[in-house]
């Protein structure tokens, strides 16, 4: 048999019960998994569990001091969310630049995280937004920091039977940005991306967050750059120096999408553009 029956649970509890009992692959929007299955059409399809009908996984809610984004919230849902535009602009920018309308209508934030691509567009913003991910199984629930979730390209700490159920972002309206560079204007996988968020008090940086996409096996925080930026006044000299530091922090490779040398340079360029935007009062300069 090449095809096996698909499971369509009506509730989260049902879904978790199935997940713990059987070897099934949960499918969120499907925009990554179906592409992979398409690549391997000559092998039997695994059994799939479809999460579309679990309403609670699609909600975007404000709680005490945080926002909870359901794992099945689509990029379009996030793009249109007023609350996220206020508190999570780098994420909103990232999803609005990702893929095409058709992809954004299907792709989910949970799926993008689970796919664990170093070029995954929602991940650098989630790093700088200090996001936590709720991982739930029929037996347990845990909340982990996004940075602790990834082990490598496509590799995560997700245990069998566990599902990403929500993404929790602390409420804060510090300014931030997300910038990416692709070969083509639209619909191109990022050669490199940079997200940043900064707590700024009287023109000096109290707390910096910088995350880099597509320059290492996973998305990474630029710790040295952040350390350098903390306490500095946001001026042209600081920006130039930060760009230099971030270039060295990036560990990109040569591949079909770009060269390592180019990627290193561009990480610096994007950080500069983001910081200049902040300096000039544009949140999310793109």
């Amino acid at each position, binding site marked *: 048999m*090449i*095809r096996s029956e698909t499971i369509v649970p009506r509730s989260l509890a049902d879904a978790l019960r199935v997940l713990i009992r059987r070897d099934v692959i949960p499918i969120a929007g499907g925009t990554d998994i179906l*592409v*992979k299955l398409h*690549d*391997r*059409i*000559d*092998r039997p399809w695994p059994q799939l569990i479809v999460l579309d009908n679990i309403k609670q996984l699609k909600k975007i809610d404000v709680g005490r001091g945080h926002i909870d984004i359901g794992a099945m919230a689509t990029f379009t849902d996030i793009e249109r969310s007023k609350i996220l535009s206020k508190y999570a602009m780098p994420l909103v920018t990232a999803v609005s630049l990702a893929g095409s309308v058709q992809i954004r209508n299907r792709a989910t934030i949970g799926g993008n995280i689970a*796919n*664990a*691509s170093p070029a995954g567009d929602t991940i650098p913003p989630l790093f700088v937004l200090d996001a936590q991910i709720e991982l739930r199984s029929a037996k347990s629930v845990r909340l982990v920091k996004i940075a602790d979730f990834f082990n490598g*390209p*496509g*590799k995560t700490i997700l245990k069998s039977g566990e599902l990403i159920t929500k993404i929790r972002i602390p409420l804060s309206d510090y300014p931030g940005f997300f910038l990416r*560079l692709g*070969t*083509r*204007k*639209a*619909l*191109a*996988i990022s*050669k490199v991306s940079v997200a940043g968020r900064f707590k700024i008090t009287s023109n000096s940086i109290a707390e910096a967050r910088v995350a880099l996409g597509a320059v290492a096996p996973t998305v990474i925080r630029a710790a040295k750059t952040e350390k350098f930026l903390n306490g500095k006044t946001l001026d042209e000299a600081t920006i130039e120096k930060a760009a230099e530091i971030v270039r060295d922090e990036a560990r990109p*490779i*040569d*591949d*079909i*999408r*770009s*060269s*390592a*040398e*180019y990627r290193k*340079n*561009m990480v610096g*360029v994007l950080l500069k553009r983001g910081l200049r935007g902040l300096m000039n009062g544009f949140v999310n300069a793109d």
Partner: protein
Amino acid sequence: MSDQAENDYSIIGKDVPRVDVIDKVTGRAKYGADYFAPGQLYGATRYTDFPHAIIKKVDIAKAKSLSGVRAILTADDIPGRPLFGAVIAHQPVLCKDRVRFYGDAVAIVAADTQEIAEYAASQIEIDYEPLPVIDDPVAAMADDSYRIHADSNICTHHKVRKGDIEKGFAASDLVIEREYSTQPIEHAYIEPEAVLAEPGENGGITIIGSVQNLYNIRRAVASVLGFPLNRTRIIQATLGGSFGGKDEVMSAICSRAAMLALAVGRPVKMVNSRENSMRESYKRHPYKMKYKVGVTRSGILQAMEITIIADAGAYAAMSPFVTWRSTVQATGPYVVPNVKTDVYAVYTNNCYTSAMRGFGSPQVCFATESLMDELAESLQLDPLEFRLRNILRDGSITATGQKLTHKVSVGQALQAVADHADYVEKYRANINQTSACKIRKGIGISCSYRGVSLGAEGTDAAGVVVSVQTDGTVVVSCGLVDMGQGAATTISMVVAEELGITTDRIRFVNADTTLIPDSGPTVASRTTIMAGNAARDGCRKLLAKMKPVASTLLGCSESELIMRNNSIRSAPDKSSDSKTLGFSELARICFQKGIPLLSHGWYKAPSTTWDEATGQGDAYFTYVYGANLAEVEVDMVTGQVRVVKFVSAHDLGRVINRSGALGQVYGGVAMGLGYGLLENYAERKGKPALENFDEYLLATSCDMPEMEVIFIENPDELGPHGAKTLGEPACELAAPAIANAVANATGRRCRHLPLTLERVLLGVDLNRDEDRESAKSRNASQ
């Protein structure tokens, strides 16, 4: 033949909706994959695992035992000749003992479902002995290189010898040498290859599908099956784009589907995935081009020495013809008294290359037009002025010694685009942009001349069948096909104009090899001129029979008849004594009188001459001319190029369908923009580094600039109503115009396509050291 004044036309030159739009907006148009036959099976192809290897053993036992598998065939099962190829018949339908590129097929499967067929194909066990992979055409030319075929790796060598280049260089004040290169690209028709083969009733085979050149393909299929041509029927389905691409690859796919259908006695459908399409379909040739050129201080070209090496890939396909066009056009549209050109097509283990929109011109246009800008810079002339000093004019002699006897309008086209965008002023201003400027502007021009139709490549003739029904409606069919470019509409318009009827009365029927005579291939932008002339011929033969009847009925002489808008009048004005007769009534009366209302129009192109030894002769019976202008903004920090404005001017003789003509230009520019900036079918050691549209980047709606089109109409006496050619000229000039604009902006010249961000910024190509296989296995583990 342009015997009508422009304002006399009722149809020609107007904006006529395509004849096929209703089917296409409702989803009713049927493409190859949309045909289903009762009892149909699904076919799949097993490709080689190595780009170059000896096949030691093929074991189908395991695959054959799978439930739902109906047939597995290998080279041993080929009933007729195992090799095909329109020029050199050496391409295997299925490889028996050796594979030469990564898209070569070893076995085919027919099964109950697509999944089973593909799974079974993957379970066929093949033992190989890998051979060295020859992926560099320059290295492949060496005498001691491993040979891809029995003879030398040099597939073709064309030359031009005109004047004496040494004298020319001696007379020059400046001699420069430059090397340019272009990349292989995909046709990237959005419809992947698809066919349905059905065993016919009289022991024949009928194939319907996405075929561009029905007659080439029929010859190949008949030969593979060992069938006569009249038992091999090819019907063209609505084509989802082709651009030169659905020819040899379709010969292979049609032959395979036919073999399977005959083996199981049931219809077999074969539809390529995008991955398989990219893997096995031929590409546009990558070229390496060396130019040495001499010019006087006053900017007059004296000599050109040109050496071009084209990567033919594993099989010849159309390489001998593609490189021949490059040979004829290699100097660009300039008067060059002394020319020595050598163009080679060389076999490698890369994906084979063949016809693609442009057919050997986009590469040489990129080289010559970059070169003209470089020369102008060296001479401190503006590139427009420098070109105009050397441009072909009325009566000029081309590099092949041909005297141009028609209106030569390349200077006119160039001036038109330059004037339209204030080229000279902007070019100068852009050079003086400060280095502090992060986004710099650039402007660039390019121009070309292009031989119309096949030229000295081969037999150049085409047929059209025009059949008037008893109710006055008309059925038209033609051996040259509509692959999306709008041929059906253009030919219908020519017929409508000729018969004095409206296009809604005409139904264009896709070609069917059993009904329409061999009209050669739908290539070389030859459809409007060849089929248009054939359609006129067919209509005139009909009118010769219908007009006497009309003149008797209306009581006037034949010369007094005015046929227009579905009716026939006896006098030009609407005076009271003017009688009218409906075209439908005339058709009915002719039928009653036993007059046959079916005619077969035929047109044979004027002959051309070519001396292979010297490369001298009248290579094409006429030429078209065009010029492009691009304005860009270059991000000096990222290397990102944005094309902001584009102007195209083309002398196409006469516009038949304005809307269709505009569509050809817009689409040509988009394809040329992709060639210039985005597209690259990258291969590494004979294996493709990409396989789908996620990495093979076409221009999207967001990449397209504001586009303006200037049509220049110098009617050519050889074209229908003076019309010539547009499809290919529209796409050959964008990349060099963009490259020149980028150089104008950055002050650095990129001599290699495409102008990726990395190349514009760092001047280097992407390092493709990452093995695709390791990337894939990494992905698979995710």
